[in-house]
């Protein structure tokens, strides 16, 4: 399934957040959405997840505008992972992961075998099986995020939209999460991931989209996007780029004085 956003514009009061951003995610592709704070990454992601409405521009999934999809159908096809992994009540982990099956159930329908299997598989993939009976409030930030990732996988979505899924994780689980997303893409899904860790983005994403002040500054392979000039123009940093055996490395050296 192809997700395409076309000339998206959005403003909050006097503040133009997105000024005509284009972005597409192809089948099997893991796309990293990068850019400095306030560039409009989260807003663009939410518009593409049909959570907020753009002032103008269209988003199409599988060549149909999002408005033509039913809430249920869209919820089955797109998985969304919110920033900061909120959980407002101390729910039991397993029950929280089960919430991911809600798009597949009618109002009074009980969860069946297929649903339980999906929940178990998602918990296994995210390595949170041992937490199943714990309360989500007693978990560390990283554990909680993994539980919420399991919740998202339990939905069995085709397109995953994740807002900073690795921000609170240790390096082991950062790698693990990115591998999970890559596996998802290999199985025919796709993903759009907002992230700040440029090294991990360079290593795992097939393509990077650099957002700056509501515009897409550059869209292409990691090597094409992660260039000193572009990083200086967007992030305002002087960065050294090092080619290593295991991929491109970005080393921020100093802030660019403006």
């Amino acid at each position, binding site marked *: 399934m192809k997700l395409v956003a076309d000339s998206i514009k959005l403003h909050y009061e006097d503040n133009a957040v997105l000024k005509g951003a284009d972005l597409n995610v192809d089948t099997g592709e893991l796309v990293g959405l990068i850019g400095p704070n306030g560039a409009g990454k989260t807003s663009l992601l939410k518009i593409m997840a049909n*959570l907020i409405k753009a002032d103008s521009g269209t988003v199409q999934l599988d060549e149909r505008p999002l408005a033509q999809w039913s809430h249920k159908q869209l919820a089955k096809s797109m998985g969304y992972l*919110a920033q900061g992994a*909120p959980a407002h*009540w101390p*729910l*039991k982990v397993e*029950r929280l992961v089960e*919430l991911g099956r*809600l798009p597949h*159930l009618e109002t009074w329908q009980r969860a069946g075998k297929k649903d339980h299997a999906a929940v178990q598989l998602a918990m296994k993939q995210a390595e949170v099986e041992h937490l199943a009976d714990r309360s989500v409030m007693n978990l560390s930030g990283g554990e909680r995020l993994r539980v919420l990732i399991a919740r998202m996988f339990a939905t069995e979505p085709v397109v995953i939209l994740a807002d900073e899924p690795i921000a609170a994780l240790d390096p082991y689980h950062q790698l693990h999460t990115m591998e999970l997303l890559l596996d998802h893409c290999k199985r025919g899904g796709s993903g759009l991931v907002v992230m700040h860790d440029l090294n991990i983005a360079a290593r795992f994403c097939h393509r990077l989209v650099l957002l700056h002040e509501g515009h897409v500054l550059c869209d292409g392979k990691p090597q094409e996007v992660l260039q000193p000039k572009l990083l200086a123009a967007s992030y305002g940093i002087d960065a050294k780029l090092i080619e290593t055996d295991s991929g491109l490395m970005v080393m921020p050296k100093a802030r660019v004085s403006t």
Partner: protein
Amino acid sequence: MKATNLHVPYLPLLASLFILMVLLFTIALSTGPTDINLATGWQDWINSKTSLDAMIFSEIRLPRALLALSVGATLGMAGAALQGLLRNPLAGPGLVGVSNCAALGAVIALYFGLGHMFWYAVPMMGMLGAGLSVLLIFALAGQQSGVMTLILAGVAVNAVASSLISLALNFAPNPYAMSEMVYWLLGSIANRSLNDFAISIPFMLTGWLLILSSGRFLNALSLGEETAQSLGFNLARYRSLVVIGVALAVGAAVSVSGNIGFVGLMVPHLLRPLVHNEPGRLLPLSALGGACMVLAADITVQLISPDNELKLGVITALVGGPFFLYLIIRTRKSML
């Protein structure tokens, strides 16, 4: 909020509360100043045979116990629903603004002495007040509004209604009407008839159904509004569903019973740890718990003051006030 590790299976939990409710219901039926034989009363009433037992059973005991059950269930479930909707353990059914408007409607009926002309004047006016308040709240807040706007509109409507109640009390036509209004406001289910139950139960049932059908939405909401939306729930629609459900049920309950405070606050809070804080599962559980609590409170009222001087609403407030204080102190601690 302290997380607990109680492992209570859900269905047996529901079943045991249900049994407790039936038990309390039976005790409520057998409690009263006169000793009657319940079985004879029931049989005589069914066979439309006039006997003292049948009269006491059908005109005093049964309506009172049925109202305790349904009003309690409404308050418990509505409290759980609002706490889930606001994701806040300090919310109660009064927040939506319906209860004071229902009370205002009833007070107006008492003010003009309508209650003595038509038996249905007080509950009908109460429900009219409740209905108008919902229209007013949605007109004030708008259809697409967030939860906070809805609640603020509710608080505003509540405040206006409460000031109008004061006005009515201030200009009460005679001391008798005045005491009638004051006693009604204290909250009681004594001296109600089966008609009061019949007139309010359809609204309560509809409200329950609306609330229960949004149980999964409330579950999803514990992951935040955006995630709930991404799970396929139309936020505006489900929000209205909960608010209208609460308004219908609470409006009908208050119309027949007056204000019975704190039940909707206490019951969900006490039961929440037993279902691992799951808002959806808490709804039916709180309904049963609320029914048990009001039945027990009403039995207590009759035992400690058989001449019906002590009102039900007073005893729930006496227990509920300190409980609310305790809750605030505990919540504050866990938030620090």
